[in-house]
């Protein structure tokens, strides 16, 4: 029955391995959870979850599995009054723990109903009536491992409650992120480029000393590859009107890319909805500050990794028609989609990052053009996970 929890964790996207699961079982055997649900919650989380980004998922899974301890709202006034009294702290002993069977919610509710009918006076302490302290499953400030708390402060705070409060929601890594997190994701564009390719041109001093010493003092030189990053990045960002809600997000990505000093080269261009003959040098997208797209294609080698950022949402004609360009007073000989294909053809390692969450791609206004562009570029949403996957994709190409 407990094994279900494992699958619920999996379902919520917490990557639990068998190793960790066995560790948890060992820990339970050693009695590390005591028999308090809260300690058990801490134990499970410490053993099974290895990044704060998954705390929220864990909380959801935990709440789903150990769900259902809530305070009924429609209780007679008098019961609230009985409960509104202070009381001495409660010592929980081993014996008390053993005496309590875990009750399921249905039984609890039924028992509470019956108890409500029977009870006629206030109770503090004791193990049966609704009241404060004591070990009856009903009331507050008392101890019952699976009781119903009625009013009062949660003293021995229920773990299901804690989990249900979702304190770690902000740490989820599929939500939108800050500059530093972007930088972290972009950093991964580095690791594959070190010491894997290129000639061995740098003297490895430590290696040389070691080899020479092993060689009884006769000099033996050891060479290694330089730790330079060969990655070149081209960032092309949509700065059209429909992108305005995402300005901050795009700024953060831009800042992160700019600060990531590990790229050998970083080029940034802007476009409005779709790429045509011109690429712009600043987000205002004016012709006076632009270069020809052909110039860019000619001058940048195809080993540039390309990150296209945009909502990919526009009128289908902007992609498919001659003269479909949205900017007044401009005309495009070739449809936007041709330019897009050309771009992809020149830069095989290209990905599209879309600030619109992926779950809306099929239902948003731009669904048609999103689909068309998805056929050309692998598309990811602009979140930590999305960027991670995009970076993985960019690395896989070579």
């Amino acid at each position, binding site marked *: 029955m407990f094994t279900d929890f494992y699958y619920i964790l999996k379902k919520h996207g917490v990557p639990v391995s068998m190793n960790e699961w066995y560790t948890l079982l*060992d820990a339970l055997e050693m*009695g590390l959870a005591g028999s308090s649900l809260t300690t058990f919650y*801490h*134990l499970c989380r*410490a053993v099974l979850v*290895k990044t*704060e980004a998954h705390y929220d998922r864990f909380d959801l899974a935990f709440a789903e599995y150990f769900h259902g301890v809530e305070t009924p709202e429609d209780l007679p006034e008098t019961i609230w009054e009985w409960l509104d009294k202070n009381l001495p702290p409660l010592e929980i002993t081993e014996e008390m723990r053993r005496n309590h069977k875990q009750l399921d919610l249905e039984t609890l509710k039924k028992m509470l109903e019956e108890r409500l009918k029977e009870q006629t006076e206030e109770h503090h302490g004791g193990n049966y009536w609704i009241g404060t302290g004591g070990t009856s499953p009903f009331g507050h400030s008392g101890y019952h491992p699976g009781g119903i708390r009625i009013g009062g402060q949660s003293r021995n705070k229920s773990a299901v409650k804690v989990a249900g409060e979702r*304190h770690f929601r902000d740490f989820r890594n599929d939500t939108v992120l800050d500059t530093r997190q972007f930088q*972290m994701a972009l950093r991964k564009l580095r690791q594959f480029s070190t010491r894997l390719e290129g000639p061995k041109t740098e003297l490895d001093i430590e290696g040389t000393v070691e080899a020479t010493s092993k060689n009884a003092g006769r000099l033996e030189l050891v060479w290694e590859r330089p730790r330079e990053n060969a990655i070149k990045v081209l960032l092309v960002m949509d700065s059209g009107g429909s992108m305005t809600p995402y300005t901050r997000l795009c700024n953060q990505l831009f800042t992160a890319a700019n600060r990531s000093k590990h790229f050998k080269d970083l080029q940034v261009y802007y476009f409005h909805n779709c790429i045509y003959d011109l690429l712009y040098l600043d987000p205002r997208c004016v012709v006076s500050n632009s270069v020809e797209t052909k110039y860019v294609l000619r001058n940048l080698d195809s080993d540039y990794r390309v990150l296209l950022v945009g909502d990919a949402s526009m009128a289908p004609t902007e992609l498919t028609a001659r003269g479909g360009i949205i900017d007044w007073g401009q005309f495009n000989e070739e449809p936007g989609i041709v330019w897009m294909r050309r771009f992809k053809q020149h830069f095989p390692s290209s990905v599209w990052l879309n600030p619109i969450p992926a779950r809306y791609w099929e239902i948003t206004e731009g669904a048609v053009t999103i689909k068309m562009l998805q056929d050309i570029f692998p598309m990811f949403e602009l979140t930590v996970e999305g960027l991670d996957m995009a970076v993985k994709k960019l690395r896989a190409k070579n």
Partner: protein
Amino acid sequence: MTKSFGEYRGSSNYIVSDELRNAVNIAIALQKPLLIKGDPGTGKTMLAQSIAEGLGKRLIIWNIKSTTKAQEGLYVYDTVQRLYDSQFGDHDVSDISHYIKLGKLGEAFVSDEQVVLLIDEIDKADLEFPNDLLWELDQMSFYIPETKETIVAKHRPIVVITSNAEKELPDAFLRRCIFHYIAFPDPEGMKEIIKVHYPDLDKKLMEQCLEAFYWLRTIPEIQKKPSTSELLDWLQALVIGGISPKRIKEELPFLGVLLKKNQDLDALLWHLNNRPQSRIAHRQSFQTR
């Protein structure tokens, strides 16, 4: 409950939450490394000191730098010294063990009593670093091929590892650890922490400071949010400077202690000049509390 569980209860100069205390005791009982992550200044390094103090054990600190290699924690074979000695012939170079120097991990293994080993800021090192330590941390032993000697831990050290999340740690490594994330303390928790460091602090000053501090942290444009240790420094500066509590929110004196980057100072000024209403609204929200 086993006897070993619940050993660690915190120490006099360190506030430990129930969750963290449980995590520490779980790690000790399961004999697994405890991996601690959290924002800078949330007391990750202090935790190891507190564990050592609370349990009365010696603390060995292995500070990780970007150039640190896993091997250095085990032992270093000083080949250069041996080569040098062999050329002058005034030492017995045939005994290699003279030139084997144990690293921090090795030191923790050969210690006659159980120690607390802190591997500080493991994410600073190369990406492969944690993987290189898997076997040693699992088995608590390593082999020195030069002397054909196996170093086995006399007492399994309590291993605490801290990380600032600069690099992702490998999954295989994570699987072997007990993990805890130290969340940034809320104002109530922060008061407790401040009390430990400055027991006699003026209450009014503390409240004003906390208000200003948590407000600063809510400004989205500030990249490097001030942390606990910066708040503590700031409080000290304010006490030494004899600043009256009334002036703190108005003038934010000694701001350089809290904000270390030019852009952040600019962002704050911009925020103050362009959106005064948000600040007023914020103050009101504090008053109605």
